[in-house]
């Protein structure tokens, strides 16, 4: 009896000991020990000296962490396993030991940022599965690397984020496709789309065209910005009735009706004018041109001749926010252009006969108004009496902070349960989640979807401390768009449709105006505004020929020369003295040695990639040339001109040579070429 008890006691005690010992044993076998052992072996193998190899090999196992009390008390223990992130000798080592590729913030700022702020995941964790956040109950799993630039966008909130091309592209696409017309987002509260006004519809469009367009805009125009809505056929009828029932604005109607009475112009002359004015810098015609403005290949089938004529005369009368500049065409020239557009750029397969004017039905029109409101058409197309309407989509401001549990996956059970996948599917095919959703389909390319998702995932409400805020643009440059008389001229010629000034403006032109005054001479600028010519033949976008009057050109040139300056760029590279002859000769030798002529035209020969330098002395200020040569990538990283790392003397010599090239052969040095 008691012997049995004794056996029970002995066995029980042994089991007790064994089970209690299991817990510390399990603890000692945690996975990071294995990674650290492997890392020590790898790092010792690659260590540059035997001493360092010994030092790294004798490192004890321990949990490593990056702790930032000033940055939301973040703790990232990723470095416990990813031990080689800041060790250049481990470049190319297998995961997870490799060196972190160099970016603006890594590995230099690793201690300030940690890992999780950019990559996502669970910084506190010391096991792979938990750290990568792929477990339940961790709201922010590892951000897929295709969307990594979304993290840049959480601090860099501007449309252009340096070193984040995908993010920048995504943000541009979101503006282009007017996402902010239906969805509110922080920083875009004042956004308005550039969609055409519908106020002159009966005088401008044909009902059959509108019907086709509403069905699928991309079928009529591959560059259409308007997405494809899923409008019921009955709703389409109602909508057309509504649009054609609205009386055109009196002012516009009188312009269009006046234009209708004018005699037709000469289409052949119009075509020449169309080319001269470089309309394809913005518009696409038959596959050629830029897609920053509506495609014109079939514009003749879409818009009436009278409307086209009235529009070309003064685009801003039709849409105060149009990026289209006003060209100073004579009445005949405008008629010729309109004739070219309506006679040559149309769908020849369609019968040419005039469609009879559409007779709207008032009851259907009333229905159509509801359809217009239902699909939020007013978001992009301004409409009288609808300016105060709420945006119809949900706010996007803190989209990136949404928890997966709060997302409605609807019918999409095929998707992985992550925010990125959900956003991706919403952008690709919004209708797939549930029937009856109003969000239209944008038919984006895969790469475009990735960019837009990246931009969307950057919309986080999570702030960063002040000391982490990116430094804003250099304060010694102009950031404001001009006002007053010059401002009106800038508006008339829509300079900012293509050129960047400070933080605003379009990026069609490669020449930002922010420091244009420090770059080019006033006289050259004035002559260029009057008669623009092609500087770089390789670029498809050219400065349009506005037929600007002399007074306007002078005022704009004066303003740019006086205001758009960058104080860090000297006006003259030679401190006021003329360049010495020896310097010019030495510069010429350098020019030849570096092979500058493979890209630049000088005299009769040279490449086409860079701007020609034959008239560089007339066009550019010598201070700018020197400044450029110091570091060509200074203002844009994608500049192809190599940074040769020239010495101060070499720069001055090369500047002396380039800045003495003149079109007018007054300088003897020019003649020698």
């Amino acid at each position, binding site marked *: *009896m*008691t*012997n049995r*008890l*004794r*056996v029970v*006691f*002995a066995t*029980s*005690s*042994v089991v*007790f*000991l064994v089970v*209690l*010992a299991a*817990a*510390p044993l399990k603890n000692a076998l945690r996975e990071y020990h294995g990674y650290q052992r492997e890392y020590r072996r790898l790092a010792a193998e690659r260590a540059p000296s035997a001493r*360092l190899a010994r*030092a*790294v090999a004798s490192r004890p196992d*321990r*949990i490593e*962490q990056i*702790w930032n*009390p000033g940055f939301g008390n973040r*703790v990232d*223990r990723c470095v416990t396993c990813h031990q080689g992130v800041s060790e250049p000798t481990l470049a190319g080592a297998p995961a997870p030991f490799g060196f972190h590729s160099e970016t603006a913030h890594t590995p230099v700022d690793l201690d300030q940022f940690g890992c999780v702020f950019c990559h996502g995941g669970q910084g506190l964790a010391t096991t792979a599965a938990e750290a990568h956040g792929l477990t339940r109950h961790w709201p922010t799993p590892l951000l897929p690397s295709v969307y990594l630039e979304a993290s840049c966008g959480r601090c860099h909130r501007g449309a252009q984020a340096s070193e984040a091309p995908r993010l920048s592209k995504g943000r541009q696409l979101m503006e282009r496709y007017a996402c902010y017309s239906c969805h509110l987002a922080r920083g875009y509260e004042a956004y308005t789309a550039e969609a055409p006004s519908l106020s002159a519809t009966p005088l401008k469009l044909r009902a059959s065209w509108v019907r086709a367009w509403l069905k699928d805009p991309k079928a009529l125009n591959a560059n259409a910005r308007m997405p494809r809505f899923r409008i019921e056929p009955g709703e389409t009828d109602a909508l057309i009735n509504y649009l054609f029932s609205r009386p055109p604005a009196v002012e516009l109607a009188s312009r269009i009706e006046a234009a209708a009475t004018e005699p037709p112009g000469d289409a052949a002359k119009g075509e020449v004018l169309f080319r001269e004015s470089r309309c394809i810098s913005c518009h696409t015609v038959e596959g050629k041109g830029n897609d920053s403005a509506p495609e014109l290949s079939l514009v003749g089938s879409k818009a009436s001749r009278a409307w086209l004529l009235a529009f070309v005369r003064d685009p801003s009368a039709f849409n105060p926010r149009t990026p289209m500049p006003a060209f100073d065409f004579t009445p005949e020239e405008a008629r010729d252009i309109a004739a070219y557009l309506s006679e040559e750029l149309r769908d020849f397969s369609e019968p040419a006969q005039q469609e009879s004017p559409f007779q709207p039905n008032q009851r259907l029109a009333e229905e159509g108004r509801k359809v217009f409101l239902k699909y939020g058409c007013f978001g992009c197309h301004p409409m009288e009496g609808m300016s105060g309407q709420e945006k119809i989509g949900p706010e996007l401001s803190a989209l990136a902070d949404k928890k997966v549990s709060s997302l409605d996956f609807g019918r999409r059970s095929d998707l992985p349960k992550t925010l990125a996948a959900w956003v991706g599917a919403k952008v690709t095919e919004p209708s797939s989640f549930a029937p009856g959703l109003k969000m239209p389909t944008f038919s984006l390319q895969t790469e475009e979807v990735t960019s837009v998702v990246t931009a969307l995932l950057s919309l986080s409400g999570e702030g960063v401390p002040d000391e982490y805020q990116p430094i804003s643009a250099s304060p010694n440059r102009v950031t404001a768009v001009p006002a007053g008389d010059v401002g009106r001229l800038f508006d008339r010629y829509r300079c900012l449709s293509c050129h960047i000034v400070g933080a605003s403006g379009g990026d069609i032109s490669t020449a930002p105006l922010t420091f244009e005054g420090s770059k080019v001479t006033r006289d050259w600028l004035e002559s260029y505004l009057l008669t623009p010519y092609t500087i770089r033949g390789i670029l498809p976008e050219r400065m349009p020929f506005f037929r600007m009057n002399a007074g306007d050109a002078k005022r704009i040139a004066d303003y740019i020369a006086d205001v758009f300056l960058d104080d860090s760029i000297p006006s003259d590279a030679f401190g006021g003295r003329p360049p010495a002859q020896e310097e010019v000769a030495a510069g010429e030798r350098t020019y030849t040695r570096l092979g500058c002529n493979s890209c630049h035209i000088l005299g009769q020969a040279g490449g086409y990639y860079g701007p020609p330098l034959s008239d560089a002395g007339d066009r550019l200020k010598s201070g700018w040339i020197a400044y450029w040569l110091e570091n060509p990538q200074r203002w844009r990283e994608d500049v192809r001109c190599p940074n040769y790392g020239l010495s101060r003397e070499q720069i001055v010599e090369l500047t002396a040579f380039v800045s003495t090239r003149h079109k007018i052969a007054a300088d003897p040095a020019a003649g020698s070429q």
Partner: protein
Amino acid sequence: MSDNGSIEKALELQGDGEAGDGSSVDRRTFLTRIGIGACAAACGGAGAVALDFIHPKVLFEPSPSFVAGRRSLFPEGTVFFEREKKVYIIADSRGVYAMSAVCTHLGCITRFRSESRVIACPCHGSVFNMEGDVMGGPAPRSLPWLEVRLNEREELVVDTSVIIPAGTVFKA
């Protein structure tokens, strides 16, 4: 005296005298020993593990040691005051040494006076020489010397948690 029998004997319970052969006594003792031994080992082990448990594995506090920089940053004759770590790093003809800047009197932060080349405490007027010895004032002890060593990247590292005997100059 007979009170002090062994616990093993005590566990030989009453009423099972029928297991009378000689080996059974050995087995009983053996089983009791196993039982008590394993139990004691488990308790001892649990105590040791508990002790290890309360020993933190990561710390949320500034590291006691810090990287001062390469040796060439400290040319002979310079006195470098690391304000945040409250440490002087002094280089002289013998080499480099580090010294706490906390006055041994009441813990004020001392200052180096370059004109007279002494370390003086602003609170109660203690004065130390460049070896950390008390030259005057109420300070009871000289300033402690701190360990200086080289790390893997050949940078000087000062460990404020290790006090070394005065006069132990780092030569490198």
